[in-house]
């Protein structure tokens, strides 16, 4: 009998040497980044990493990019295309992945796993989504147009799930709006105080002229009164049968209270992210200073119709994998897909808004689907450094009821 033993390799850490992102801008034709090809959003970040660290790109094993709608400008493996477009060494590979909204964080987790396994030494992980050029759902697919699946699985729109969470928890329109107002306030303050400056790389045109330097989606003047005027986005689901389909799985619900709207849901934006993850030895070789490390990363899944309650269970699973408890976490990031998602996450984990999304979130700054996971890494790392704290948990809700979590810490 042959015994295979891995010696040493499993003990190496996955270090984060850097994390960068583009600013985020409205994902419509009048958004600042609509004129920029998605491939250029990525190559801008790759070139920044290269320049900042005087990086020998031939030492990069792979570039993993999350992208949720990988068609049109984002089709045909945009990761590999972007690597070449950026002029990186031809030995660098690229792969695009799709774990819905968690794609960017999944990329980071996979990069960490690759490094920890010892199979690879240096990876760029992140994501890209030009929602203005490639609208959500434009790839079609089972959850868009397969009646057998839609009916059989009660695959109702996400917003119905978000409203169902609020209904089950008894959260009113004012409750979820209040969360959104706070997100805007925090994001505006953080941006204007320069908290994001280390990570946000201005998007430039081919002449080196800046197209967008900072997040421009934030609406600092958002007020409860202003939000109160917005119409709920999923009220029509009561009439078109989607509510009935969701309630069929939650027979204790009389009717779904439709509380979410454009102002308390994540914004549709364009953007990209890139995180440089590698081993200790390559850090030494290339004189890269670790800013942090990936402690643990997990994926899980929960009831798919409500769809958005995965983050709490994912965070708990992640703590278990890391052998930690909630007390070991200093700051928390939950992707603000909808107010109720973040509120449910805090309730599930018994944590306070004081330590959660301290610089706002996707309600204020937008959620460029495939890119967001990488964005969260840069936001968390910057804030841990600014506050002199150790450890942060990142979590996201994911289509199909999945939840993802990653713990990172400063070294």
């Amino acid at each position, binding site marked *: 009998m042959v015994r295979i033993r891995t010696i040493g390799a499993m003990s190496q850490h996955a270090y984060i040497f850097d994390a960068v992102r583009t600013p985020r801008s409205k994902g419509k034709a009048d958004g600042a980044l609509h004129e920029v090809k998605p491939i250029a959003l990525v190559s801008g970040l790759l070139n920044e990493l290269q320049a900042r660290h005087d990086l020998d790109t031939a030492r990069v094993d792979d570039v993993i990019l999350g992208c949720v709608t990988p068609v049109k400008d984002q089709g045909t493996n945009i990761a590999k295309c972007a690597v070449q477009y950026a002029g990186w060494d031809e030995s660098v590979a690229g792969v695009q992945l799709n774990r819905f909204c968690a794609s960017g964080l999944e990329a980071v987790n996979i990069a960490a796993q690759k490094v920890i396994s010892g199979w690879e030494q240096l990876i760029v992980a992140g994501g890209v989504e030009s929602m203005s050029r490639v609208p959500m*759902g434009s790839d*079609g697919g089972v959850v*868009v*147009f*397969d*009646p*057998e699946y*839609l*009916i*059989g699985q*009660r695959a*109702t729109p996400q917003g119905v799930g978000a409203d169902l969470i609020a209904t089950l928890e008894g959260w009113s329109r004012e409750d979820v709006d209040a969360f959104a107002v706070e997100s805007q306030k925090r994001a505006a303050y953080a941006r204007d105080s320069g908290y994001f400056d280390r990570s946000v790389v201005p998007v430039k045109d081919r002449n080196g002229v800046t197209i967008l330097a900072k997040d421009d989606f934030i609406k600092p003047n958002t007020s409860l009164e202003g939000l109160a005027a917005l119409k709920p986005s999923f009220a029509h*689901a009561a009439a*078109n*049968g*989607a509510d*009935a*389909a969701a*309630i*069929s799985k*939650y*027979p*204790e*619900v*009389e*009717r779904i209270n439709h509380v979410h709207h454009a102002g308390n849901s994540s914004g549709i934006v364009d953007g990209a992210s890139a995180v440089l993850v590698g081993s200790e030895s390559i850090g030494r070789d290339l004189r890269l200073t670790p800013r942090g490390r990936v402690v643990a990363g997990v994926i899980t899944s929960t009831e798919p119709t409500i769809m958005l309650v995965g983050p709490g269970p994912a965070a708990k699973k992640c703590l278990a994998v890391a052998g930690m408890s909630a007390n070991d976490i200093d700051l928390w990031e939950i992707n603000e897909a909808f107010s109720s998602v973040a509120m449910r996450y805090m309730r599930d984990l018994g944590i306070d808004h004081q330590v959660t999304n301290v610089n706002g979130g996707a309600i204020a700054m937008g959620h460029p689907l495939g890119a967001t996971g990488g964005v969260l890494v840069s936001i968390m790392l910057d804030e841990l450094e600014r506050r002199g704290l150790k450890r942060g948990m990142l979590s996201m809700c994911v289509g199909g009821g999945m939840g993802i979590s990653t713990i990172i810490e400063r070294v």
Partner: protein
Amino acid sequence: MSICGYEVDKDGIATVIIDMPGPVNVMNGDFTESMKQTIGNLAAERDAIGVVIASGKKTFFAGGDVKGMAAAPGAGFNEQITHAIMAGRHLFRSFEKLNLPIVAAINGAALGGGYELTLACNYRIAWDDKSVLIGLPEATLGLLPGGGGVVRMTKKFGIAKALPYLIDGTTMPASEALEAGLLDEVVDRVEDLIPRAKAWILSNKDNPNAALQPWDRPGYQIPGGDLSASAVRGFVNQTAFRLFEETRGLLPNKQLIFDVAVEALKLDLDTALKIESRGLATLIISPISKNLMSANFFQSTEVRRGGARPKDIARFRVSKVGVIGTGDVARTLSRASALAGIDTVILGAKPGDAGQAKASLALAEPDAPVLAGILATDVPSDLSGCEVIVATESADEALLGAVEKSARESVWCALNDAGAEASDPRTELRGRFVRLSVAPTDLQMAVIEVARGDFSSDGAVAKVYDFLRQIRSQPIVTLDTGVAFVERVLIHQLVEALSLVVEGVSPVRVENLSRAIGLREAPLTTIDQIGLARFASLAKRHGHPSVTPRVVALLDRIVAQGRGGRQAGAGFYDYPAAGKVLFRELSARSDDGQSSIADQDVKDRLLFSAVLESIRQVETGVLLSVAEGNIALLRAIGAPMWTGGYIQFVNTYGPQKLLDQCNALAARFGARFESPQILIEKMKTGESFA
């Protein structure tokens, strides 16, 4: 001569006449074999330029063999059934592969397979006559149009237009079908059909596409587009949830029709046809389709043909009817009677009552002058000459006596136990008295129960039966034991629902889980509509003694808070303008989903309480016709369509399985779920409920 023989005329046009032995042309092995031969021969005709397909019968083509499909074995025979259905798709496809244009000359009903045949033709002409019905009613039988109907309709019209016809099973007269595009042309006279068909072939002699279906032409685009069109994607996504809400996932055939239609958007015709055939096979195997075929074909036919109406008694045509009483029931009845062209008299106890009732009817429908012809009176002798008199509410002895004097020949009907005479008809009424009942939910009087007792002669029963037919209500005949069948089943189910509430299941769950089993109306909604006080008295009469007292106590408590039901403006629900909401206090007292009674148990108790009570009434002999029972349960109290009626449900669910279910439910929830003896007997004899 072949059953699909043909002759070729001097212009080279072949006319195929389908003329099978028996009254109609149907899709069976003989037809397939013969038509296959004919198509083969036509392909070899050197000088032919086109083909007309016509019928030698009064109807064009009756389509699929429902009897055969209903009798097909179920689970365990997947292989045989699938192969048999799969083989069928080639015949109509061979029409399309024939290099000659084919015109369907439709002289009579072309429904289901009949219309599918014409979809495989290049042009459809029909006689514009009311006998010529067009459409694909398969969906109403729990099936799908499996002769290419789903695929060709979708390819031809686009999914948004095709789907409603496919899923609703709509049928329509030729003129309407022409307007909808389901036909290409109509003719006024039947003898013009074949000449017009030939003329079309001649005028398309040089058209290279005349023999080619649109979908077989290169670059064909489905109207409205395929799944690459965002409008089509939106339609599919939205329709899915609408269909769920309509069917609660309980009518698999409608979902399958939808799924096959979407597949047809993605795939070439031949591949899509394979998928369609497999889908039909799935449905033929499924018990739910057998239930729907039973209810919407066999039993509805049996009921239409007279059900338990006394046989051998000539049909009556009632020309004058008296209605005693002026309430809602009396008004509904008088309206239906007058609209049916019957001389109708409303008799009120006080001067002016009847006039007011009549005025309200006439006011509601100014377009129906016949309502103004109703005679409203408080003079009993005005009822003289009425062939049928229906007493709808209590009246004093003197009035009844006076009516009787002037109507010694009339058949007396006591509706819903109206008046003291109902429980004890006077001897003078011997031979001409029947009891009628309408379920409290059946406001339109879709079904009226005719209970025959010692005082009911066959002639009286038949006369009342025929009168109810005239007013477009479905009569069912039961044995008069003082139990109204449909009402009793309904009340049993509603009492069970309230028993769940008493046991701590939240009203929201009761309502939602009743929808999950496919009840047309949720129980507490129904009780509000009946009115809590009236329901309490019905519960005392019909409900099971082991649960009724606690249920009545709950009702009393709610009524005591001024919540009498829908009419009172509040009951189990509040009724604000924005839509009804369950009474908060009641919901707050219950479990909020954490009851120890699981969802499945709630659903089972709601379903089986009605199923068991239904078959108990077969056992007691109250119900004379199972077909009438099933149809009445479906129409009058909204039994779930997928069951085919609570009695038919037992046939496909299986008596042994039901017995096991009874034992399990009885052990956990009480003796009222114990199996009726008749179930054990049916198991012994292997008979079904028919």
